């Protein structure tokens, strides 16, 4: 179970000795393959029996050791993350730019992978902070990989605000310790419950702010749309698909394990504002990557809305949304990368008529785009509707109206991209390669296709997946179960 964390780290260290790119690639894929097997095994086992797996680091009792805890949600997230990371790496290999530009790409990418897994598995608040720092630092490096003017400027915003986030998180954790004397997530629920209301609320809100910055929620989202568009597509794809999800995941943990059911209405309001502001940003922009980046923010809002409603149905819907959104968002960025690689840009001012040039690419865009807009029969529809339904049950009418309006505006933003980039005459001015769009980028196309297929598979297998999400949600709400599993480990 600790393999998805340790494996990539070891690989990263080994790769510092490797000069040859091919060797680095080999090590990367081998490692991810092993991680994949390991995380799939954990996932299947937990799917089978639902027993929470705990690894006690350094072998000390669960009550005061650092633990890695895999419950249903964590195991799922690690598996999905590993799959996505692997496919995107294949894409990056096909794209060639990032890993040929810097010999540190592969090691840093591996470290980021490890950080993501560790964040999902962390059973200790401070260790979670460390995991965050690992993946953040790796993301800083990946974001500024080429060191261009744009990247440095955007990287600065990203780095500074994420450092601020780190400070807030660290402060929050320090205060949690000061109030409770522990940072173990299994020990915290009981101790937090004893605190005075204001202190408890303050700690909860501080954690919400910290994770909220990471997850890019209103009003703390601004760093995201400014920075993601500047990274290479393969990098921003992982950022978009996974990194913000880590923040959401942590918000879910905070809301279910540490402060069960508290301040739900605040979360709902934040969620509604986030989806609205995000989508308005998306339709304000023209650039494909910008629109997609703002859409990340908007989607986060949906998850927060579901989380805020609370209860197993809403949390299950949120989990389903969380999982479905990873391949959807990732694939959109990957498509953008293919467009940009083919035409030198993905701006509608430069590119158009892509659908004529590559119908397959158009389909690869359309499926996740419609899924994002919540249209049936794609996974996004099920996820969005599941959340809306939970809202109806809870009579969150305002939120539902916002969610539906945002859904329409999301469609607007996707249509903007479609009309601007995929429709229209083939622009003669563009730096268009003469051969087929996907012919020279077969690996990029295939990996994008795999992620799209993954998202379609989520839609097809929605039934069993949703049952699993429901079980995962029930497990999340069973605080005592978590505590006992860690204590008795």
């Amino acid at each position, binding site marked *: 179970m*600790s393999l998805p964390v*340790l494996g990539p*780290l*070891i690989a*990263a*260290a*080994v*790769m*510092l*000795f*490797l*000069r*040859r*790119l091919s060797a*680095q690639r080999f090590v990367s894929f081998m490692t991810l393959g092993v991680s994949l097997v390991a995380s799939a095994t954990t996932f299947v086992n937990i799917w089978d029996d639902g027993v929470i797996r705990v*690894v*006690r*680091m*350094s*072998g000390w009792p669960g009550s005061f050791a650092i633990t890695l805890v895999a419950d249903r949600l964590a195991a799922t997230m690690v598996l999905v993350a590993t799959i996505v990371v692997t496919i995107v790496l294949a894409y990056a290999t096909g794209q060639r730019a990032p890993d040929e530009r810097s*010999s*540190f790409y592969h090691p840093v990418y591996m470290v980021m992978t490890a950080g993501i897994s560790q964040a999902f598995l962390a059973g200790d608040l401070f260790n979670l902070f460390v995991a965050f720092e690992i993946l953040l630092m790796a993301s800083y490096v990946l974001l500024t990989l080429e060191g261009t003017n744009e990247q440095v400027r955007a990287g600065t915003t990203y780095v500074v605000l994420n450092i601020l986030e780190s400070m807030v998180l660290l402060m929050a954790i320090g205060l949690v310790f000061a109030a409770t004397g522990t940072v173990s997530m299994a020990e915290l629920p009981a101790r937090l419950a004893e605190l005075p209301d204001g202190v408890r609320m303050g700690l909860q809100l501080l954690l919400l702010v910290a994770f909220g910055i990471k997850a890019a929620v209103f009003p703390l989202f601004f760093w995201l749309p400014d920075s993601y568009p500047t990274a290479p597509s393969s990098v921003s794809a992982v950022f978009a698909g996974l990194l913000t999800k880590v923040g959401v995941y942590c918000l879910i943990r905070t809301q279910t394990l540490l402060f069960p059911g508290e301040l739900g209405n605040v979360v709902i309001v934040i969620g509604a504002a986030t989806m609205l502001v995000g989508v308005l940003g998306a339709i304000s922009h023209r650039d494909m990557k910008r629109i997609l980046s703002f859409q990340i923010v908007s989607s986060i809002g949906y998850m927060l809305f579901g989380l805020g409603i609370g209860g197993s149905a809403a949390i299950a819907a949120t989990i389903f949304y969380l999982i479905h959104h990873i391949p959807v968002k990732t694939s959109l960025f990957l498509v953008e990368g293919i467009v940009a690689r083919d035409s030198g840009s993905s701006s509608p001012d430069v590119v158009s008529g892509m659908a004529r040039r590559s119908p397959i690419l158009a389909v690869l865009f359309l499926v996740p785009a419609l899924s994002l807009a919540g249209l049936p029969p794609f996974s996004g529809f099920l996820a969005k509707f599941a959340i809306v339904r939970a809202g109806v049950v809870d009579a969150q009418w305002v939120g539902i109206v916002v969610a539906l309006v945002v859904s329409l505006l999301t469609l607007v933003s996707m249509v903007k991209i479609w009309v601007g980039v995929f429709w229209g005459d083939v622009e003669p001015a563009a730096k268009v390669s003469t051969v087929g769009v996907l012919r020279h980028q077969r690996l990029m196309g295939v990996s994008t296709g795999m992620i799209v297929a993954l998202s379609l598979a989520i839609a097809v297998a929605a039934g069993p997946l949703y049952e699993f999400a429901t079980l995962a949600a029930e497990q999340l709400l069973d605080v005592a179960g978590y505590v006992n599993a860690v204590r008795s480990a």
Partner: protein
Amino acid sequence: MTFIRSAILDELVDRWLSKVAALVALYVTFRGHNAPGGGFAGGLVLGGVFVLQFLTGREPHLRHRPIRRPTMLLGAGLLMALGTTAVPLFVDAAPLESHIWKPDIPVIGEVKVVSSMFFDLGVFMVVVAVVLMMLLSLGARGSSLVGDDGGEVS
């Protein structure tokens, strides 16, 4: 940073200060388990020595010694720490679970070796490597240093 031609620096820094400081660095590293110090502090002290060499323009010294490839040192340090983390997995223990050996070696007597010492040593190496990398990259005046010393895979 330009090299400073100075007899004072030659004598003091090269002959004595560096070596004494490096010795202290090792000392701080290894006694950390029982007194303030440890791999991190020790690594920083040794890093400080390199800073001193660097500030006095002595970095050519670094380039003729085995630590000229700090990325490899970095990798080695990480591997040592990770090894300490992962090896227990092979003997069915928890990751990072420590083990205390007390072998009774002839002449020396009973020696107490704690496995976490290797972890600390890994930390030490990483810190030294990090300091070196930062010095050699940010501190490089010309370009050549970066390619040669800051990292080697091209």
